[in-house]
């Protein structure tokens, strides 16, 4: 056995704290170490060549690289050793950067001692590593996209255009998402529906896309290339094959104009049978089970009028939820966002003072398809003085610490729309820093100011309060004179979906401190989750404007398409195996395995390697040590424990 040890300086990232020459010299004293070197950047071409040459010239059997986290460069170095003819799984990494030099920057001596220990532990483990063979399995040539907003639409269209079957699952009755609710889009003032609707129609008629609206993903099994997804198609109480979208049922409904319309932020009313908005895709009606008189009481007059009105015989109050299973190779999560509820901060008066509304409510008010057909009015009157308040629920030390990234610009858009529709109106924006960082944003902000919109700056911690005064609202901002306004619009924060805990449990992907889904690397892998084959698109990963959402969604589509195009995938060979002579056939491992990968065959445990995910639960459960995890055996782990604690090796 010949082990090569390579210590990386990482510029000065490691060598600024850890004495790498000392560590490399120390490694030479360890058993089985044939060569030990240090170099400026082990991951660079010359660094890689150094390792390859030594493998070939010295006949190294095992390699240890002491550098950054294996989560960063383990795949890189496994490829390097493989290219030089060594088995990729006889490679081990010691993390002396993230876990050492960066964490102990003022303790050079102790950090160097720790780095030596980490190298010693890795060498001890490496000596016990055995070659493993990779296995390949075919990939199901289909993708699942969860969420039918602009991110999900973009992703689904691009995967489908690449030639792969794509399932698009949306929980509400129509695709379109938040973008469908918007009137105009900053900074170009494109009409949101005009640019979104054609894409929605493209989704509906794409031969590779199967659209599942009013449906929820309830379970995911399997692994990259071979996921099995369970989807609940919620009962619509309308046969979508028969429904022609004529709307006669909604006209006939006894609750017509009496049910709060969530698409219009509850500013308008709808029937109990409805489409969320006129351009809905699919244009198929849905009965709201929470509201429908017949579904709630079993009786609606002599017979439900919707049934009588429907010439297509599409309404079926007996319809039930349907559970289906989909086989897909990759998954893109594009579940979007919710908006901050400003009634959590009573000082804004939201929910108590009629003149105070949110930005999204303003959006519906100003939209031609909204409840006022685009007339900005409050209490039936056109406002003469409008105050916008920014950072409501964002940049909050006690709440969402992050910046929601879109509020500055949507407020500028709203201010412009007020000036556009009510030319004499006075418009004041209370801002706490205007962030106009995107393409065309600064120019738009300057334009809006030139149009006469007054920007007043507050500090984040400054007090602000809105109080009612007859049919007006008085905005009291610290450091500024009080303003009596007809309309106050709150720029509320983008937040993770309220039901995210349920979604997370199904997907098993991590969330960050901000509650948004966590990408595996914030810069280089912004669409990847820690689970291979599951990617992130749009605002479920963090607040984004439409251009950034579309860009990330396209990226996620590209990432999700790669394994589909490859057609097969390497399985991690670090799976469990059974030492038959030691196995008593007790079956504890069978019970412990979360993936049903172990079976008892003729009184002995047997592992299905295609199902095994390598968690090692079985190994920790087995009382006789008969089931072990390749690359992480009890023996290998104990050798690390021993070496880390022994003064001599």
């Amino acid at each position, binding site marked *: 056995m010949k082990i090569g040890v390579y210590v990386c300086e990482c510029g000065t990232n490691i060598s600024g704290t850890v004495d790498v020459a000392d560590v490399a010299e120390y490694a030479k004293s360890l058993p089985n170490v044939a060569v030990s070197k240090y170099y400026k950047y082990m991951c660079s071409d010359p660094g890689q060549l150094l390792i390859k040459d030594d493998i070939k010239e010295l006949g190294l059997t095992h390699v240890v690289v002491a550098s950054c986290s294996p989560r960063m460069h383990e795949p890189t170095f496994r490829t390097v050793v493989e290219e030089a003819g060594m088995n990729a799984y006889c490679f081990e990494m010691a*993390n002396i950067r993230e*876990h050492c030099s960066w*964490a*102990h920057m003022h303790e*050079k001596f102790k950090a160097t001692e720790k780095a030596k220990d980490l190298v010693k*532990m890795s060498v001890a483990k490496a000596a016990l590593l055995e070659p493993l063979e990779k296995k390949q399995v075919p990939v199901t040539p289909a993708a699942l996209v969860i969420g039918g907003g602009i991110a999900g639409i973009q992703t689904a269209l691009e995967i489908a255009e690449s030639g792969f079957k794509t399932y698009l699952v949306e929980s509400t009755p129509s695709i379109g998402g938040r973008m469908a609710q918007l009137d105009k889009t900053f900074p170009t003032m494109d009409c949101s529906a005009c640019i979104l609707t054609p894409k929605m129609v493209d989704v509906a008629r794409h031969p590779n896309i199967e659209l599942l609206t009013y449906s929820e993903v309830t379970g995911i099994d399997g692994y990259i290339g071979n996921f099995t997804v369970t989807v609940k198609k919620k009962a619509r109480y309308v046969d979508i094959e028969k429904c022609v979208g004529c709307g006669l049922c909604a006209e006939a409904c006894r609750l017509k104009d009496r049910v709060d319309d969530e698409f219009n932020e509850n500013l308008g009313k709808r029937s109990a049978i409805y489409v969320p908005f006129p351009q809905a895709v699919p244009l198929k009606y849905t009965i709201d089970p929470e509201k429908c008189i017949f579904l709630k009481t079993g009786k609606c007059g002599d017979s439900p009028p919707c049934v009588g009105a429907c010439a297509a015989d599409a309404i079926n109050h007996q319809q039930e939820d349907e559970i289906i299973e989909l086989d897909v190779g990759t998954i893109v999560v594009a579940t979007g966002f919710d908006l901050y509820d400003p009634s959590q901060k009573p000082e804004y008066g939201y929910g108590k003072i009629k003149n105070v509304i949110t930005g999204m409510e303003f959006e519906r008010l100003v939209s031609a398809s909204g409840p006022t057909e685009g007339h900005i009015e409050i209490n039936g009157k056109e406002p003469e003085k409008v105050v916008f308040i920014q950072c409501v629920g964002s940049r909050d030390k006690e709440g969402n610490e992050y910046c929601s990234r879109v509020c500055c610009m949507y407020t500028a858009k709203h201010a412009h729309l007020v000036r556009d529709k009510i030319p004499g109106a006075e418009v004041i924006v209370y801002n706490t820093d205007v962030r106009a960082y995107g393409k065309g944003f600064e120019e738009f902000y300057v334009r809006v100011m030139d149009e006469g919109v007054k920007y007043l700056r507050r500090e984040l911690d400054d007090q602000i309060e809105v109080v009612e005064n007859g049919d007006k609202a008085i905005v009291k901002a610290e450091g500024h004179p009080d303003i009596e306004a007809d309309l106050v619009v709150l720029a509320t924060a983008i937040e993770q979906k309220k039901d995210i805990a349920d979604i997370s449990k199904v997907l098993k992907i991590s969330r960050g401190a901000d509650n948004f889904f966590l990408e595996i690397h914030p810069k280089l892998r912004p669409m990847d989750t820690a689970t291979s084959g599951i990617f992130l698109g749009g605002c479920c990963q963090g607040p984004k404007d439409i251009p950034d959402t579309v860009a990330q969604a396209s990226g996620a589509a590209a990432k999700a398409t790669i394994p589909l195009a490859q057609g097969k995938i390497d399985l991690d060979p670090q799976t469990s195996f059974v030492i038959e002579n030691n196995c008593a056939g007790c079956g504890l491992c069978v019970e412990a395995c*979360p993936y049903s990968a172990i079976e008892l065959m003729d009184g002995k445990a047997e592992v299905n390697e295609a199902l095994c995910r390598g968690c090692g*639960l079985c190994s920790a459960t087995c009382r006789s040590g008969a089931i072990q*995890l390749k690359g992480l055996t009890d023996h290998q782990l104990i050798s690390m424990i021993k070496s880390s*604690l022994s003064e001599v090796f």
Partner: protein
Amino acid sequence: MEDEGGAKESWEPKIIGFFCNWCSYAGADLAGTSRIQYPTTIRIIKVMCSGRVNPQFVLKAFQEGADGVLVSGCHPGDCHYIEGNYHARRKLTLMEDLLEFTGVDPSRFQMSWVSASEGQKFAEVVTEFTERIKKLGPQTKLSGGEG
């Protein structure tokens, strides 16, 4: 505190950490990337899941002279392997009783839940655990050492 003179001015505890790949190891990585400083006392061994930690490893660490053992995994409900951390919790809660039985102060052993985004929490856990072990002094019961 700069210690470049190399003098070992006082006793430093030796702590073995078993960290799951998906949450806690990544959280420790984030602490480093964010340059959050914590004591050099811990040596982290990466396992794929906290549920991989066999109670035997904990005993072995104490026998070999560890002064403290820390096992860290994903928050309950967030396990990458569905329920591995629950297995870990069940198994390792019993560990505390066993340690008490063998005469090792059970507070030398700790389980923690650290997610991939909790670099700060990771550093706090290691710092507090180190302080606790420092107060307890060297572990000699299982290692057979003199302390």
